């Protein structure tokens, strides 16, 4: 008998989601990545590992994060019922720490003494620095020089936690370049170093591993929404840069075809201007940072610089699972511009008393357009994956307050 198709059976054993994903790295890194895959497959079933992960998720991160009925926003928009998954209430202020906790527990079991990571908005760097402090491991964070400037509070926090911050000046001095530099570090320090990648991208097994560690978000939503509504939601909405928070929310629901999934890319100044970070809507398949996926690039295969007011979405690629989900139509993708995200950020702050990060503000703007068109019994869950304090310096001049 044929096994029933499940979206959740991917990636395949080659690390591929359809045509996407894989392992496109230099030979020096190949044995490490194969070893990592082996160890991950072993420990993800290990009772002690799971127990430690769950224990620290609860006591250190503060999981489960609440599911919150945004009643004011719902009334204001006059359509669907809107729920926020409050992952911004996690320790360190975003969903990133879920994955960092999982990966550092793995690093510990692999006897790695030194942790490296790339960061854009600084949330992943901060989460990495935090778990490194917790486990007493040396921490080196690669961060684009441009991002260091626009995410000052996070830089200060990382330093306070004992991390070394290495400014990256090559290329566009943002997330993509930080990832290049982290990969160069890894290839130079193969014996003692573990690379904690922050999003569901990179060579296999990272896209799978990051997604798995983040999928706690969707699993919690499944239980929590039942308490409120006695049924599952109609739509799930999340922003996507590399795609970790959205996959975290979506993954548990992929096989329920009646639940609509929406991923919101950063539209920057507008796709037509060329200054955006909408890899799925305006890019094409290619290979970067170890995986095949949609990428912003010119016709000769040179990677273009992304643009977004949100440092966390400012990346010209996207996790390979999203590329696949786009092609097969399981998730619908839209893009939201810089100024629209700021508009949504202001609205949410005033109406709900929650200052969201710029990243989920993109998803939130989509919600403000989508919800009014739905019936009153339509239930939306949006992942509020980060809080906005880190962005205040950068957006202050644009707020007109």
């Amino acid at each position, binding site marked *: 008998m044929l096994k029933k198709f499940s979206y959740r059976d991917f990636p395949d054993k080659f690390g591929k989601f359809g045509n996407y994903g*894989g392992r*496109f790295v230099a*030979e020096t890194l190949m044995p490490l990545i194969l070893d990592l895959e082996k160890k991950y497959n072993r420990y993800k079933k290990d009772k002690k590992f799971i127990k430690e992960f769950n224990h620290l998720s609860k006591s250190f991160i503060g999981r489960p994060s609440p599911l919150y009925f945004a009643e004011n926003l719902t009334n204001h928009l006059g359509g669907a019922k809107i729920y926020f998954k409050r992952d911004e209430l996690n320790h360190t202020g975003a969903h990133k720490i879920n994955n960092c906790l999982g990966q550092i527990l793995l690093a510990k079991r692999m006897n790695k003494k030194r942790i490296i990571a790339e960061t854009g908005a600084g949330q992943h760097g901060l989460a990495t620095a935090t778990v490194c402090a917790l486990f007493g491991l040396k921490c080196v964070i690669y961060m684009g020089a441009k991002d260091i400037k626009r995410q000052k509070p996070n830089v200060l926090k990382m330093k306070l936690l004992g991390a070394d911050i290495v400014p990256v000046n090559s290329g566009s001095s943002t997330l993509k370049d930080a990832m290049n530099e982290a990969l160069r570090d890894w290839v130079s320090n193969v014996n003692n170093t573990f690379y904690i990648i922050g999003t569901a991208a990179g060579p296999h097994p990272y896209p799978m591993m990051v997604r798995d560690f983040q999928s706690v978000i969707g699993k919690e939503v499944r239980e929590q929404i039942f308490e409120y509504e006695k049924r599952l939601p109609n739509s799930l909405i999340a922003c996507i840069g590399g795609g970790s928070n959205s996959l975290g929310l979506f993954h548990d629901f992929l096989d329920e075809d009646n639940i609509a999934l929406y991923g919101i890319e950063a539209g920057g100044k507008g796709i037509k201007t060329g200054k955006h970070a909408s890899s799925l809507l305006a890019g094409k398949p290619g*290979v970067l940072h170890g995986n095949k996926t949609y990428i912003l690039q010119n016709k*000769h295969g*040179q*990677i273009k610089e992304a643009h977004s007011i949100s440092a966390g979405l400012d990346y010209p690629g996207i996790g390979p699972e999203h590329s696949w989900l786009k092609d097969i139509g399981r998730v619908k993708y839209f893009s939201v511009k810089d100024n629209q995200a700021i508009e949504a950020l202001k609205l949410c702050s005033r109406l709900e008393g929650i200052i969201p990060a710029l990243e989920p503000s993109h998803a939130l703007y989509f919600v403000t357009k989508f919800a009014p068109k739905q019936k009153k019994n339509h239930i939306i869950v949006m992942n509020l994956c980060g809080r906005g304090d880190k962005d205040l310096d950068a957006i202050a001049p644009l707020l007109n307050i």
Partner: protein
Amino acid sequence: MAYSNYNCRIEKTFRDLKSANKPALITFITAGDPNFNYSKQVLLNLPKAGADLIEIGVPFSDPMADGPIIQKSYRRALKNGVNLDEVLSLVKIFRKKNNYTPIVLMGYYNPFFQKGIKSFLKEAEKVGVDGVLIVDLPPENDDEIRKHLSDYKLKVIRLASPTTDRQRLTKILKISSGFLYYVSITGITGSGLSKFNTLKNAYNKLKRYSKIPIVVGFGINTPEKAKIVSKYADGVVVGSAIINELDKTIDKKSNINNNVIRLVKKFSEAIKEARK
């Protein structure tokens, strides 16, 4: 066979050098750095300066395995709008004057993938490219290129590194042709090689399993180091040192050719000394 002459350039070069008991000097330059014409001039002069095989870097915006020197070189070339088609036309020009020095294109996968693997292989063969080395295309992921290989004579050069274990090496050697490129250090291009004994031991181990020549690259940044390694290695690759020389004279473009050629000659003399 129509391609026999073409097909043998890499093999013939190594065979000839072996019978003369000489190691191969493999020089790397970036196509289009600092611009198309200067790289053409340098390329044409490399064989008489002593280059036995030439690697041409295909510029890429995000060279993850390269250090600052080659990153900068790629940036300069890209600024001039150099793309894979121009790299191929550079080889075409070279082949009109030189039909014996093997040319290997070295780069990252995306520019090849965007051009289309089939049309790349076809055009590369036509202009006289002998091999291609794609840094971020390990054997596990090279099905797109491997499925076409039987139609073309181009060699896919494989890499081995200090992290490659024996089991993996056997797998890599099974699909290797031309020569094997041994990455001497765990690191990026332009790092300095220092553990000569470790390298020699690793090399000799590799040699036991390999039927094809093995060249050593990464970290060979002085003629002295090249000399030490060429005592036993089938060939040494010099990359960042050459690009660094080019970088130093970049403001006076007219000197580039002379300075780069002078440096390559030094490397060539040093490795010829090695087995005396």
